């Protein structure tokens, strides 16, 4: 009888322990993420829950928000916008109280946070007040929230990606037709690749140690993307998307807009406006896997138009990719494995840059 009671107690103890383990393991298994969509034709940022593919929250009050980026702990959001004052708004994510508006050197476009969270990098499209643009990369210290450096560039900067080791940032300049790589330790320009056309969105493929291996950069007159070798500091290939499908118009800007490497590093996804599709390539070999058609704009009595694919982001588990289409006021969720659309999510006016918040 005593033995039996002990056995039962032991059983119950082990059972409770196993439940505790399951509970402890749950947050790791169900990593929480949110997709932030900046609606550049409006004043709002839509927040999508990737579990339901619904907009679960709308942040209001930003004039033409450019992008939302996050501190690694998920507590802060950094938002450049097209307000009259050229500032980077730093917001507490939970309370949505503005912590600070950091003065910038000019009109801002994209921004990035280094993986270590130490620096916020802001692409300045124009530091001046005339049509003749002069760019800069503004570097903000994430602790003091002060601009600690502004590295001038010949022309305006548009999009940015950072190596996983936080040592380099690659930035595209459409007007200068160049790809500029910044050394973030020296805080200076390290090297450049000159093109014959404007450089649009880009992403960096990192090696196992987090160092930059290749840069995939879209060009505004190429239906495809350029491949730049980080070590060689030069373009080593230009990937052209298939000729079909085709026939869609130029949409909001350029013919190639929106590119991203899945977090598992196995695929690169690149939008095409002539095809109104996103093309998928395997990595590291850059072999075409297929394409996914994107929403079209339906005009009564006329042929449909392209939806204007804009930017790309992924869930951290590399299961779902999200593509914003500026002309359709929607974001398309696509299953990476099957390459099938799983949801079309209505959002605000001109959804543009799109980013993933990973909640620790």
């Amino acid at each position, binding site marked *: 009888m005593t033995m039996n009671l002990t056995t039962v107690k032991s059983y119950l103890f082990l059972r409770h322990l196993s439940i505790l383990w399951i509970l402890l393991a749950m947050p790791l298994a169900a990593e929480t993420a949110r997709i932030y969509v900046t609606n*550049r*034709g*409006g*004043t*709002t940022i839509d927040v999508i829950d990737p579990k339901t593919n619904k907009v679960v929250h709308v942040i*209001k009050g930003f*004039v*033409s928000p450019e992008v939302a980026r996050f501190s690694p702990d998920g507590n802060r959001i950094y938002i450049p916008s*097209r*307000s*009259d004052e050229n500032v980077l708004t730093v917001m507490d994510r939970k309370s949505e109280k503005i912590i600070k508006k950091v003065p910038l050197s*000019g*009109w801002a476009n994209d921004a990035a946070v280094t993986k270590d969270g130490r620096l916020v990098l802001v692409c300045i*499209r*124009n530091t*001046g*007040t*005339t*049509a*003749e*643009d002069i760019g800069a990369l503004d570097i903000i210290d994430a602790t003091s929230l002060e601009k600690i450096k502004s590295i001038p560039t010949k022309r305006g900067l548009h999009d940015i990606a950072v190596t996983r080791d936080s040592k380099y940032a690659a930035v595209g300049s459409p*007007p200068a037709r160049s790809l500029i790589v910044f050394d973030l330790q020296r805080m200076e320009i390290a090297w450049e690749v000159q093109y014959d056309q404007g450089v649009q969105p880009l992403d960096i493929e990192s090696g196992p140690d987090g160092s930059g291996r290749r840069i995939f950069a879209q060009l505004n*007159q190429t239906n495809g993307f350029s491949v730049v070798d980080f070590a060689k500091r030069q373009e080593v290939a230009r990937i052209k998307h298939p000729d079909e499908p085709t026939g869609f*118009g*130029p*949409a*909001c*800007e350029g013919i190639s807009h929106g590119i991203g490497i899945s977090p598992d590093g196995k695929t690169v996804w690149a939008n095409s406006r002539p095809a109104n599709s996103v093309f998928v390539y395997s990595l590291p070999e850059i072999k075409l896997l297929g394409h996914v058609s994107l929403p079209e*704009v339906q*005009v*009564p009595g*006329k042929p449909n*138009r392209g*939806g*204007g694919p804009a930017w790309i982001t992924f869930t951290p588990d590399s299961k779902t990719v999200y593509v914003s289409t*500026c*002309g*359709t*006021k929607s974001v398309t969720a696509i299953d990476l494995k099957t390459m099938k659309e799983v949801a079309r999510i209505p959002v*605000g*006016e*001109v959804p543009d840059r799109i980013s993933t918040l990973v909640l620790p």
Partner: protein
Amino acid sequence: MVSKVGLKTVFASFVAALALYAPVPSAGEQSDKTAAAGAARPALDYEFFKARVQPIFLKTRSEDHVRCYACHQVSRHPAGLHLELLPPGQNTWTEEQSRRNFETVSKLVVPGTPLSSLFLLMPLVPEAGGMADTHQGGRQFASQDDPDWKNMEAWVRGQKASGSSAP
């Protein structure tokens, strides 16, 4: 410096976009167009522009839309509809700047034929014959009955500040 190739590309894109997306005119519009082509184009009225069109650029038309000036100020929009920078601390343009805005916007319209004018088509929803799906500022006007859009249209048709239509 804005490169010549860049401007050419922008212009070519506009022309291509217009060719692709401009609404097919109805019979009435077509005769309107033919008449306008045959007759002298109406003169665009500066005073009407200044009083009834220019203020629209600074107006927050709804909380879901950004005002035109946020993107179309010259330092952010080097070609096409590039508006003068507001003088520091001011909420409207000087006379000289308004004249320059008038010149800029006049280049984006075909006087007498509103539905051939990019200025009117770009912010108008596609369902109403516009091209706002290709406009980075989005769908600013939901219909051709929008009072602001009607003011812009009246200006393109040649309406004078005094109220008379041209010519």
